[in-house]
């Protein structure tokens, strides 16, 4: 897709000051994509690291590659950069053959220098590039360099990070800049009645400005701390009309087929207007698995910096989707898209659609009132916790029929949940603007719209709903709840986290029920040699490391979107008398095709595993009629260092297979392996996350 839209070498590579610049539309959100892309270009062209840079990503020049999401960057941007660099290398060699003689095979390239017939000293590749330029079509059949040379890619930016000189968006300090804080309502249904006392006048006297548009309220000033204090004073003076409050009835009661928009799913894709397939008959096993609303919980609250000069709106943002965000901001403000320029600057890791886009629009709203003044808006910790769009609560219902031979004869899966499509993507009826939080509260509000089903293969709720196993009779249904009590959007893995948790727990339940070995039971239903290789390697690793006495051990396997990185997981853990889970060891065996950046790949797999461990043990958004009550790291606990187990990552390098993304491959199987290990240790089957001591205690009481 990236190459189809941007078919020229110059779309992906540029020269500046004698250095090669990699151009990409994918933003670096801590997944080290810029390290990987620079590594790919270096590898194809044998260049040292000081000669390759990655250009900043902006809507005013970068190739529009859509979202940075779905673990797609290596496959899209990485593939394009690799072929562009390979095309360039071949072009340079052809040029030298024509100028100096010889055949292509007579020329060798090493450390960015070419030697061949008639050269008494090596020629610098980038000098030749300067002569021939980059204006040439990418050859999709260009011969790419052999794998193998790359390992130990130094992470871009790390030396600056450890010195404290790396700059995040939050660190911007521009001449004439004003800081901004928002006073958000207590909850989504509340509207601003009035502001008590003369606090507004007092703030104005102190050089601060209050911005109000309906129920969207903010304060700005030249210095940050006074603005933080002013926002607190302003918040204390607000009178909110709470309306009906939030719907705080049990979300799991609401997660039913009857409340959902139902769609039959075939081969991972929802089919419009197709009849819902009949229920399976004579099933032998049923189970329902559930997950709460879950935060992205970015370590840095969202921020953005906007400047309006009367004609052009410039926004610095850490959004994953600068192109769609630009359209929705332009539409919201009646500006031409060309007059809105978004540039990516790093924030903290986001793990999906967090408050970044909302903060960008809020900064824009304020900047439009303060011409030629940069406005750096930051959300507070409480803003991020209470207002980011959460990963939706969901339930996945499974049923199976086991034949007399102990094999799966029939399998049914129904995913039930809210939308993952909360990103501000333009569409009819102001669909994009409606997804920008501030628009819901402005004097002329654009209200939230019901969720619309994602019809893509392995999109949204149906991601990994179809197991990778060979089963003769299957039925799949997605049930989208168009309205949820809390705003939701894309969270790492989308539906794959819950679906893989469900399927791999269910496989474990069935295997246990039959007295079958969990490895053997899975392998009996697999034909994919690479999947079997992973399970066999994992089995070998486990033989080498017997579980400790009293510990439980669980395994799981999945392939992300049934098409990307394959991951086998084992978890060893202990459950204390107080029903607390102590993770002891996680082993990940992964196959992501050809490895680009081994350490970056391991980091993504480990990071996914630990985020899943946090989901499995701790995370759940809590709310009541008066609003979200998970407003800080005490009321929304997450994994800390003391919870971290030993982690071993085994990567099966496949140099002849295409590189696929891995950032979302490990969480699903880790969730299941944890629950399977808890069952192994205690006999308790946790089907609703998180598996807190309270959850386990109530399961024990039901026994």
């Amino acid at each position, binding site marked *: 897709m990236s190459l189809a839209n941007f078919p020229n070498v110059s779309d992906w590579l540029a020269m500046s000051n004698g250095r090669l610049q990699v151009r990409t539309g994918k933003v670096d*959100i*801590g*997944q*080290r994509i810029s390290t990987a892309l620079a590594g790919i270009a270096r590898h194809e062209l044998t260049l040292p690291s000081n000669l390759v840079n990655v250009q900043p990503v902006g809507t005013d020049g970068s190739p529009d590659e859509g979202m940075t999401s779905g673990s797609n960057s290596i496959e899209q941007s990485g593939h394009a950069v690799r072929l562009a660099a390979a095309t360039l290398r071949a072009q340079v060699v052809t040029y030298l053959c024509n100028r100096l003689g010889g055949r292509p095979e007579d020329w060798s390239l090493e450390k960015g220098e070419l030697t061949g017939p008639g050269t008494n000293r090596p020629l610098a590749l980038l000098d030749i590039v300067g002569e021939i330029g980059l204006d040439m079509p990418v050859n999709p059949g260009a011969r790419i360099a052999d794998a193998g040379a790359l390992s130990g890619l*130094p*992470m871009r*930016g*790390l*030396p600056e*990070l*450890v*010195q*404290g*000189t*790396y*700059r*995040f968006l*939050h*660190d911007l*300090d521009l001449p004439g800049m004003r800081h901004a804080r928002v006073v958000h309502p207590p909850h989504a249904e509340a509207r601003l009645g009035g502001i008590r006392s003369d606090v507004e006048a007092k703030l104005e006297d102190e050089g601060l400005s209050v911005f109000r548009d309906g129920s969207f309220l903010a304060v700005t000033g030249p*210095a*940050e*701390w006074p603005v*933080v204090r002013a926002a607190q004073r302003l918040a204390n003076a607000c009178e909110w009309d709470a309306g009906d409050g939030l719907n705080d009835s049990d979300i799991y009661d609401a997660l039913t087929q009857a409340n959902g928009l139902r769609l039959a799913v075939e081969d991972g894709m929802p089919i419009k207007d197709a009849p819902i397939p009949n229920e399976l008959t004579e099933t032998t096993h049923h189970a329902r698995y559930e997950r709460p609303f879950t935060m992205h*919980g*970015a*370590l*840095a*609250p969202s921020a953005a910096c906007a400047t309006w000069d009367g004609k052009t709106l410039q926004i610095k943002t850490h959004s994953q989707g600068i192109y769609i965000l630009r359209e929705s901001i332009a539409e919201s403000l009646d500006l031409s898209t060309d007059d809105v320029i978004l540039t990516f600057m*790093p*924030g*903290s*890791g986001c*793990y999906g659609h967090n408050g970044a886009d909302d903060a960008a629009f809020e900064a824009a709203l304020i900047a439009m009132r303060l011409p030629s003044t940069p406005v750096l808006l930051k959300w*507070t*910790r409480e803003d991020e916790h209470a207002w980011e769009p959460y990963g939706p609560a969901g339930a996945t219902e499974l049923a199976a029929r086991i034949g007399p031979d102990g094999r799966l004869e029939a399998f049914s899966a129904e995913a039930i949940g809210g939308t993952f499509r909360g990103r501000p993507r333009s569409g009819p009826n102001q669909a994009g603007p409606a997804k920008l939080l501030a628009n819901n509260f402005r004097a002329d509000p654009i209200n939230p719209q019901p969720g619309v089903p994602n019809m893509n293969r392995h999109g949204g709720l149906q991601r990994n709903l179809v197991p990778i196993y060979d089963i003769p009779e299957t039925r799949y249904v997605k049930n989208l709840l168009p309205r949820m009590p809390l705003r939701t959007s894309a969270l790492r893995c989308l539906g794959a986290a819950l679906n893989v948790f469900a399927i791999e727990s269910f496989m474990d339940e069935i295997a246990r029920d039959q007295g079958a070995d969990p490895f053997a039971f899975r392998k009996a239903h697999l034909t994919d040699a690479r999947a079997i290789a992973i399970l066999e390697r994992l089995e070998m690793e486990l033989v080498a490391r017997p579980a400790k006495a009293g510990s439980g051990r669980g395994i799981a396997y999945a392939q992300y979107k049934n098409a990307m990185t394959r991951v086998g997981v084992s978890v060893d853990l202990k459950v204390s008398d107080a029903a607390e889970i102590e993770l002891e060891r996680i082993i990940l065996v992964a196959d992501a095709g050809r490895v680009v950046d081994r*350490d*970056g790949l391991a*980091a993504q797999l*480990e*990071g*996914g*595993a*630990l*985020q899943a461990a946090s989901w499995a043990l701790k995370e759940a958004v809590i709310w009541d009629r008066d609003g979200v009550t998970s407003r*800080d*790291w*005490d009321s929304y606990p*997450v*994994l*800390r*260092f*003391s919870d*971290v187990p030993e*982690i071993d990552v085994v990567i099966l390098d496949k140099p002849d297979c295409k590189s696929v993304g891995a950032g979302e491959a490990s969480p699903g199987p880790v969730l299941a392996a944890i629950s399977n290990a808890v069952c192994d240790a205690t006999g308790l089957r946790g089907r609703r996350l998180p598996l807190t001591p309270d959850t386990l205690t109530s399961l024990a009481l039901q026994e």
Partner: protein
Amino acid sequence: MSLTLRINGEDRSILSDPETPLVYVLRNELKLKGSKLGCGLEQCGSCAVLVDGKAELSCVSPAATFEGRDIVTIEGLAATEIGRRVQAAFVETNAAQCGYCTAGLVVAVSSLLAENESPDRDAAKAALDPHLCRCGAHPHVLRAIEIASGRS
């Protein structure tokens, strides 16, 4: 009388309101933007600085409470042998993903190693428990501590 703070080996006159939490003074008045603000609630560790050699959080306590104490921020850490060793170990092991927690962690590890030359894994984890990392870089960070302390 204005407030004076000793920061990275220098006495600095502070013009900000002495009640301002230290991290805002560091970042905005002194332009030392390496210390990060993650919560403002002393719950996440992003804002850690060394105070008299020990890691302390700077996002709540007023600047005035640090008067007469020796503050070292991430920017000044390379002045010490331990600081340089920890920074080098983080780079060697790629011990970061997004990097927002990194400054606080480098400070905390430097503080730990000043107290305990060779912490075992449990001691390392306990020392870093006030610090959140949401990317899951923990195993790489624990590896960096092993390298910096010469345990591997």
